[in-house]
């Protein structure tokens, strides 16, 4: 039994753009995720952080094969998920689940909470009849709801409560691994902490492994053991949380960190302001993808793509200047 529960190697997703009728030009592709590799260890939380459109969610969804990867391998518990047939994949989904960002969109408005939470139990033949009802009540109580909520419809709940229902559904099959796709981004700040703590408590109780996707650096800091930073479809830095937050090495990570609002005036003056916008993922820059906005970029950066290398102590950076 290896230490890593999830092993991802060279994961790529290119979304082809619509080809014009009768056009012979090659179809342009959006390189949403362009060669991403990482491991997630048993029982840990890997935080995946980056700005909008950098491919975080696509990566998370590919792990569950909700989006089919263009290429690359992902092993779950030693099994290559990318190569599974439909039936094996269904079986495999007992072990990996997802919690979505928008609790208003992720619950079927025409199904009661009981039906939503019991659907996974039925699909996998885990429980039926009285046993199923008991399990649903258990799950609801596990996520901090009451069993009398079972007969209600999603619209009768608040955002935080709905997110708890979404978590209960994900946990129904007793998964080992849960992708949390921005699970608190749509919630009020006062509710965010409650849901985060719930997720952490559940991790401890049930021995879960999380891939936690967020654009919020402080949320990531709160929940993660290790953190991966993505920029334009690539991982630019991956390190233990404390290392990364104490000493970020990649210029992009440093810029990202300094963008977190601070109240100290002196600190604020030291901010790294990035110039320009994120380049288009349809036609990403040559060499290092960050060179167009990096103040320290050299000729090497413009020509050669840096590899993600260990610079010591499990701190991986993809930057020519750090190697």
């Amino acid at each position, binding site marked *: 039994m290896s230490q890593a529960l999830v092993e991802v190697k060279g994961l790529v997703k290119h979304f082809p753009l619509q080809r014009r009728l009768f056009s012979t030009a090659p179809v342009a592709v959006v390189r949403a995720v362009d060669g991403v590799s990482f491991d997630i260890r048993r029982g840990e939380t890997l935080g995946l952080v980056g700005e909008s459109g950098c491919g975080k969610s696509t990566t998370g969804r590919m792990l569950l094969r*909700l989006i089919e990867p263009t290429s690359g391998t992902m092993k779950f518990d030693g099994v290559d998920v990318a190569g599974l047939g439909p039936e094996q994949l269904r079986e495999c*989904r007992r072990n990996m689940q*997802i919690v979505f960002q928008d609790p208003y969109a*992720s619950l079927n408005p025409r199904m009661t909470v009981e039906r939503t939470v019991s*659907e996974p139990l039925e699909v996998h033949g885990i429980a039926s009849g009285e046993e199923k009802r008991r399990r649903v009540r258990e799950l609801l109580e596990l996520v901090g709801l009451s069993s009398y909520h079972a007969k209600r419809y999603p619209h009768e709940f608040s955002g935080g409560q709905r997110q708890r229902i979404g978590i209960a559904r994900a946990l129904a099959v007793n998964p080992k691994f849960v992708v949390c796709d921005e699970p608190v981004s749509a919630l009020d700040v006062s509710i965010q902490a409650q849901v985060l703590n719930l997720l952490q408590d559940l991790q401890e109780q049930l021995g879960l492994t999380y891939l936690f996707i967020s654009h919020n650096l402080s949320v990531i800091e709160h929940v993660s053991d290790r953190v991966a930073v993505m920029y334009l479809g690539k991982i630019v830095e991956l390190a233990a949380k404390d290392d990364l937050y104490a000493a970020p090495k990649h210029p992009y990570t440093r810029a990202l960190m300094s963008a977190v609002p601070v109240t100290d005036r002196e600190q604020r003056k030291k901010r790294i302001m990035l110039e320009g916008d994120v380049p288009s993922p349809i036609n990403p820059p040559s060499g290092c993808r960050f060179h167009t906005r990096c103040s320290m970029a050299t000729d090497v950066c413009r020509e050669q793509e840096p590899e993600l290398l260990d610079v010591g102590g499990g701190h991986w950076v993809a930057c020519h200047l750090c190697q």
Partner: protein
Amino acid sequence: MEQVVTTNRSWARVRRLMEKRRLVFVGGAIILVILLMAVFAGVLTDIDPNKLAVAKRLRPPSAEHIMGTDEFGRDVFSRLLYGARLSMTIGLSVVAISTVFGTLLGLVAGYYRAADNVIMRIMDGMMAFPDILLAIAMMASLGPSVANVVISLGTVCTPRVARVVRSAALTIRETEYVEAARAVGVRPGAILLKHVLPNAVSPIIVQATFTFANSVLAEASLSFLGVGVPPYVPSWGMMLSSARSYMVQASWMMIWPGLAIVVTVLGLNLLGDGLRDMLDPRLRNL
């Protein structure tokens, strides 16, 4: 004892529902009355709807003929009752056929991208014909009978339903709850039935009430053109179209069947809207 309590409670629920949703019950009552009229036509009048009496043609309403007589001296009231049979049969059958097939095709086209082009191009092809022309062509090849009117109108109405259901399915398949169902491992067929179909119910019901009204009128057009049901069969549409030539002399010939169609369509719309709201858990308790 407990039985009594629960019965009382359920009666209270029904009463509360009736107060909140008065219009649904009005619509339901209208449709029920018309259905009863159709079923008990023979009891409500003893005049044969096809009895010709040329001497009594175009008589205004009187004690003997409460809605007057038409250009052949046939009793308008009697024809109206028997006509309800035909109109309700055609309307309901056409709605059943087009809703079942349209929903099936639309769901498959909207959910399975590979099937989409094949199904929808065929539907587009059918919609490229003017409705009435396609119906006439089918009637011409099938021959005049009530069953054939149902088949041809059902065929004509199906693409519209398919189109509406497809667009709903396209939206619903991209929602996160469908994605969540896939993540859980629900099979595609079950996703279609348990997640996509229930959320597409509103547009389907609206389309169904619409189709009913249209098919009553379309049957009238077919009969008017002489390719619908055989001329001796009383139908609202046929009555209306023959009344056209006597509009000034005998307005009762036109008013009664026209009113019947309007009231039926109104009743169905009320019923359809109410059903749509009652099936939606978000609106159920309002």
